[in-house]
């Protein structure tokens, strides 16, 4: 099983050819691409949050405020850091795209 980070990097590095741009300003188009990728990430995060809220509300009957304020332990922080790095690779993918000299 390949790590998420390696998997994302493998997809990014697979792209061939020259990227076609539509906007006069390439920097602006890359920012648009980053913003759209963040839209997708936000949708995925919202799904996770929604799922958690429903599960926990059903299983434990705790208030959402109490659950949200619980601190992360070391293992959880490590897992979140890996998830953060993977998310950053997805969102900033265009900066590393070999079709654009990345």
């Amino acid at each position: 099983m390949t790590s998420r980070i390696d998997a994302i990097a493998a997809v990014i590095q697979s792209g061939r050819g020259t990227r076609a741009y539509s906007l006069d300003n390439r920097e602006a188009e890359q920012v648009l691409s980053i913003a759209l990728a963040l839209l997708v990430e936000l949708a995925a995060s919202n799904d996770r949050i929604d799922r958690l809220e429903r599960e926990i509300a059903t299983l434990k009957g705790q208030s959402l405020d109490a659950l949200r304020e619980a601190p992360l332990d070391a293992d959880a922080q490590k897992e979140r850091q890996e998830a953060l790095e993977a998310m950053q690779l997805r969102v900033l993918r265009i900066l590393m795209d070999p079709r654009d000299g990345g």
Partner: protein
Amino acid sequence: MRVRDVQHPMLPQATEEELSRQRAVVSLRKLLNARVRSQNVRRFHEEGAAAFAERNSRQPQSPDDIQAALFESMGYRMWSAANRSAQEMIWMSVGEPIFRDRDRMQAAARALAEAPDRKGSLHLDPDYDPSPEIAGTDVHLQPGGYGRDDGPDDIVAGAFYETGGNVFSFGQGAGKGDSKAGVIFRLLDEEFPDFVPGRILDLGCSAGAASCAYADRYPEAEVHALDIGAGMLRYAHARAEALGVAVHFHQMDAADLRFPEASFDLIVSHNMLHEIGAEKRRRAMAEALRVVRPGGLVIFQDVDTRFAPTEVHRVEKNWDTAFNGEIFWQVYNEADLVADMRAAGFAETGLREHNVSAVSNINRWYVISGRKPVDGTPTA
């Protein structure tokens, strides 16, 4: 047999988070198609044409003029930029689970391909150099393209094609019940009700979804399918075995068939014509006529962009040529396919173009079909 969203062991075991990303890309593409792209022709008439005329002291007339006028519209440029980005994210959203789960998927494919009770077969040609005009491009931006082959057990191209194709098609409005093969079954039922093929050839089969549908629809028939890439074909073969249907896959060029004359009753292709250049298309048509039996049918199904109501609509549809790795999209849109079929030797009698509705949504498909005369004599 359903062809989309079919479950089998070569699909990556995507996490819920990965599935959320795929759904988000589908939703983004639906929004861009329905609410943004749908305004492009209006943008041409209300903004682009006037700006072009001011810049060039004449009205836009040629396809190149219309293309330039579209880019005079900021709304069109923003749609184009966003649509390119959304297309790239299709492959990101399916590629992460594919590469993460690749070892398991490859092992599953190998086990199915080598199973003692396998029904079909796989014939790779180590001497075949996948057609550069196709393999050299990341068609519809699929990473590595159709000819990708990362090693002896590699199936990535097929996994990309099936999973990315689902995200793409659902974003185009296709439902899970959609089937391009189903369109041809309906056409055969309506126009050739007594036609029962004994041997079927699927040209440019990609991941083999349609090939499997033919094998399922005609269980007594011997179904063969071909494409250019080993990675695509390994996946297609294992997929067919997983679904329990017999398909014989070949690494071969549609323009250079290694089958004897008059050896198939039905030759089909699905979305192949827009992926190949004019010369290869003409040779593929001639080869299809050569290997189909007298009385047999040749049917090419493809995208409906040829039915654009105006020149502006047609040029707008050509976006894929420059921005989506579909380098032959415009060539296909503007080709005289009836003339090509006639030049390949198909008789005018029995040669027909069809504008057909999809099986389960409002999309439409282009189909051109020809029947080889019973006496076998090609008619120029």
